[in-house]
């Protein structure tokens, strides 16, 4: 039996292009990726969309391998990547927009970019782009979480759409540029810095970049806003330095106990929308106690992205996060 798609054909290689690995639909203008645009509206790595009618699939071991590559890739480019996880409606995107604008004032030189995960629409990426930060929307179709291959592809597209590597390291990968031939914004950086280079990720080879290697702090921040879901994204490593769980006070203080895996996997819990506390029966101390029950080491920051209260603590945390030793 064919092991690519399970059909009866035992041929060495499928001649039928329908059996090629599922490729995402690419928005040529923005670089947004839609992994659920095929017949089954799901992403099935290594399988054709035609057979994907039966299942949604991912491979954890394979995912972790690619996540490790992502991690090395981020490190090589001086990027600190944070995986933002929460239920829908916790205020992730509002927090991100407020964060980007605040970081611009604090650290005008810091490159910040965003990968936005949602089942459908590019609303969130549009909101991020309105702040001036580069963003790539990843639509998962029916998928309930981002996986490492999606992030790998989105990160590559950020290169050619003015993302962290392009801004911070002043280079872009020629091998990613072909799909964006019509996108003039992709080639806005200085010509002398644009070069094709041999790139070996994940094998400890030094990069043949013509800029100085990164010492000390990372030079850019990458926020990966996961699909709003407090269950599934906990299991998928994307190559991030840390998961940040966002819980809003409108959701109930028992969430950390109801969805323990996510809070166990997170390094930091942000308690958002604290400006609404006077109107709610939300016991902050109890919520923190519950979070520490499932993760004794979890850090907690209370803030309101809307009023700005507590934002300084979060921005300080992000400054620390730029130090690679912070996550050691």
């Amino acid at each position, binding site marked *: *039996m064919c*092991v690519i798609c*399970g059909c009866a054909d035992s041929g060495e290689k499928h001649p039928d292009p329908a059996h090629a690995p599922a490729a995402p639909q690419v928005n040529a203008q923005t670089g947004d990726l839609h992994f659920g645009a095929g017949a089954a509206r799901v992403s*099935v790595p*290594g399988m054709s969309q035609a057979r994907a009618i*039966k*299942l*949604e*699939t*991912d*491979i*954890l*071991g*394979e*995912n972790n391998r690619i996540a490790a590559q992502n991690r090395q890739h981020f490190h090589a480019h001086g990027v600190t990547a944070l995986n933002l996880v929460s239920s829908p409606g916790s205020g992730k995107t509002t927090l991100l927009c407020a964060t980007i604008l605040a970081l611009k004032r604090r650290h005008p030189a810091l490159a910040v970019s965003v990968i936005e995960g949602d089942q459908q629409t590019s609303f969130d990426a549009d909101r991020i782009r309105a702040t001036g930060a580069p963003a790539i929307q990843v639509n998962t179709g029916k*998928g*309930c*979480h981002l*996986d490492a291959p999606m992030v790998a592809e989105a990160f590559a597209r950020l290169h050619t759409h003015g993302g962290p590597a392009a801004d911070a390291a002043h280079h872009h990968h020629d091998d990613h540029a072909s799909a964006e031939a019509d996108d003039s914004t992709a080639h806005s950086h200085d010509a002398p810095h644009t070069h094709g280079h041999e790139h070996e990720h994940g094998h400890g080879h030094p990069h043949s970049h013509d800029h100085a290697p990164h010492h000390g702090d990372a030079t850019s921040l990458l926020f990966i806003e996961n699909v709003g879901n407090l*269950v*599934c994204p*906990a*299991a*998928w490593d994307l190559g991030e330095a840390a998961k940040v769980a966002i819980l809003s006070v409108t959701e109930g203080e028992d969430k*950390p*106990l109801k969805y*323990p*895996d996510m809070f*166990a996997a997170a390094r930091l819990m942000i308690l958002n929308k604290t400006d609404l506390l006077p109107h709610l029966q939300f016991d902050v101390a109890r919520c923190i106690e*519950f979070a*520490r*029950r*499932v993760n*004794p080491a979890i850090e907690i920051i209370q803030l309101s992205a809307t009023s700005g209260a507590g934002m300084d603590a979060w921005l300080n945390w992000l400054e620390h996060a730029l130090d690679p030793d912070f996550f050691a």
Partner: protein
Amino acid sequence: MHEISLAGGILKLVEDSALKENFRRVSLLRLEVGQLANVELRALQFALEAIAPGTVLEGAHLAFDEPPGQALCLDCRQTVPLPERGTACIHCGSYRLQATGGTELRVVDMLVADD
């Protein structure tokens, strides 16, 4: 719902192995799914049975090992059972527990046939 994704990953592992080891049918597939692996066993079994028809897993018997959740209590320093996250140390009542076992999620072994 991510159990469907995991089942697909398991099938991929088995099919890769079928290509290498040259077998056509799996009669028994044994999986290890720890108590703290963030996986609902019944959902995973349902997902595997749903994707099996037409694959090497069709008709395969599924066996699950479920290693119990285990933790080190950071207060009394004892190794204690942790059936689910957020439960207290059975010795001292502390919640400062660090999971040390029960997070496994892997294919252990299988019985295969060439027919």
